[in-house]
């Protein structure tokens, strides 16, 4: 059974094809490069409208299959930008109705976790999901993924993107910050804001920009920005690990490709006797394969959606969805 997944919650369009055994036959994508002011919802909507048909063809070619071989259509129902989501939902409905196959709208955040579990050995991890639009610390408990902590304002990827935009560097900001950070080891004091397992990045952004305007070097600021933001993320993930008594950490989302963040989390996991996992780079950021795969899981356990119930959910909460395929491995305390 083949699932075609369409991703389009933000500026990146993705199409993936995955079978019901979790074999990824195709995953193709194309990102909109935003203008100076960031991602405009209607621009993203237009980008998806123009790009989805092209990517569907590309994915089918990559998978070496015909469109009529598709048995299931899945799409990112939310969370995300309203106009962007609507383009994707319309395309998915047309495809499912035209092919006369079931349709499933899936939760974008859960898709990141499930593609992470599919492409690593993680089974029941504490997941740190870090992207341009979301920052969440997630753990499976009693039938659902629970959000133990999250950003109280902007996502960590957005922190990096906005900083680079403000100082005249490119987009996305993450790789630029990572590259410049390697050229420094001089820490400049910046605001560190953790409240329990929640975090705040907006003060950190403002302070970093202010220091730039006062003449601090970009290399030192990128190093300091990473060290501060990533220490915050590592601290809350450590707390979640202790709180849940799980022994795995999964890092996912676009920011997960960052080697320094991977290093910090890996060290923290070693200290706790926990396993650390991160998906291959192509499955970290937004992609169609994760939507296709979660579609397979949702269809197997919940069945398809009625067309009338495929309306998008801009603020789709991670903990709204029953995930019956997940089984907690329990609180396994290590022997002394």
């Amino acid at each position, binding site marked *: 059974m083949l699932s075609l997944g369409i991703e389009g919650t933000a500026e990146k369009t993705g199409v993936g094809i995955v079978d019901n055994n979790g074999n990824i036959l195709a995953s193709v994508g194309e990102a909109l490069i935003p203008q100076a002011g960031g991602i405009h919802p209607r621009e993203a909507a*237009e980008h998806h409208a123009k790009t989805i*048909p092209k990517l569907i063809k590309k994915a089918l070619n990559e998978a070496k299959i015909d469109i009529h071989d598709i048995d299931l259509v899945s799409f990112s129902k939310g969370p995300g930008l309203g106009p962007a989501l609507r383009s994707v939902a319309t395309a998915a409905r047309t*495809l499912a*109705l035209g092919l006369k196959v079931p349709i499933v709208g899936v939760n974008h955040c859960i898709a990141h976790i499930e593609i992470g579990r599919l492409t690593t050995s993680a089974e029941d991890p504490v997941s740190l999901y870090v992207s341009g639009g979301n920052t969440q610390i997630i753990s499976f408990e009693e039938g659902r993924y629970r959000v133990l902590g999250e950003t109280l304002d902007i996502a960590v990827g957005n922190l990096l993107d906005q900083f680079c935009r403000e100082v005249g560097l490119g987009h996305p900001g993450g790789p630029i910050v990572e590259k410049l950070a390697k050229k420094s080891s001089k820490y400049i004091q910046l605001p560190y804001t953790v409240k329990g397992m929640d975090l705040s990045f907006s003060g950190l952004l403002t302070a970093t920009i202010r220091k730039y305007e006062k003449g601090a070097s970009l290399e030192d600021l990128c190093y300091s920005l990473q060290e501060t933001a990533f220490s915050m993320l590592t601290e809350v993930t450590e707390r979640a690990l202790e709180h849940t008594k799980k022994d795995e950490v999964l890092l996912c989302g676009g920011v997960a490709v960052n080697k320094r963040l991977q290093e910090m989390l890996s060290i923290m996991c070693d200290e706790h006797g926990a396993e650390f996992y991160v998906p291959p780079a192509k499955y970290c950021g937004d992609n169609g394969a994760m939507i296709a795969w979660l579609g397979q899981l949702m269809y197997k356990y919940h069945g398809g959606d009625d*067309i009338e119930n495929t309306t998008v959910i801009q603020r789709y909460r991670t903990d709204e969805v029953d995930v019956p395929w997940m089984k907690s491995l329990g609180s396994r305390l290590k022997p002394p």
Partner: protein
Amino acid sequence: MGLESIISDIEISLNLEKDAEIVYKSIKPEVLTAPSQRSKLNIKRDKKKILFKIIAEDSHAYRASLNSILRWVIISLDILKLMKRGDI
């Protein structure tokens, strides 16, 4: 401004009735749920015609609603085209 309202009825005719049904069903959930503070939308289908009504308070609201509707129609038609050609 001197403008009180813009009301428009848009009739989009497709070549095939079954295509019109698919496009109509694909777009209807968006038309009925799209957030619109200064405009109202409605959608109907009559054989191979899809009928939209936009009631807007100003030209910006009208244009935004119309652009959304056209975007949805076009993407739906583009997806239908993929399935017909059999060129993949």
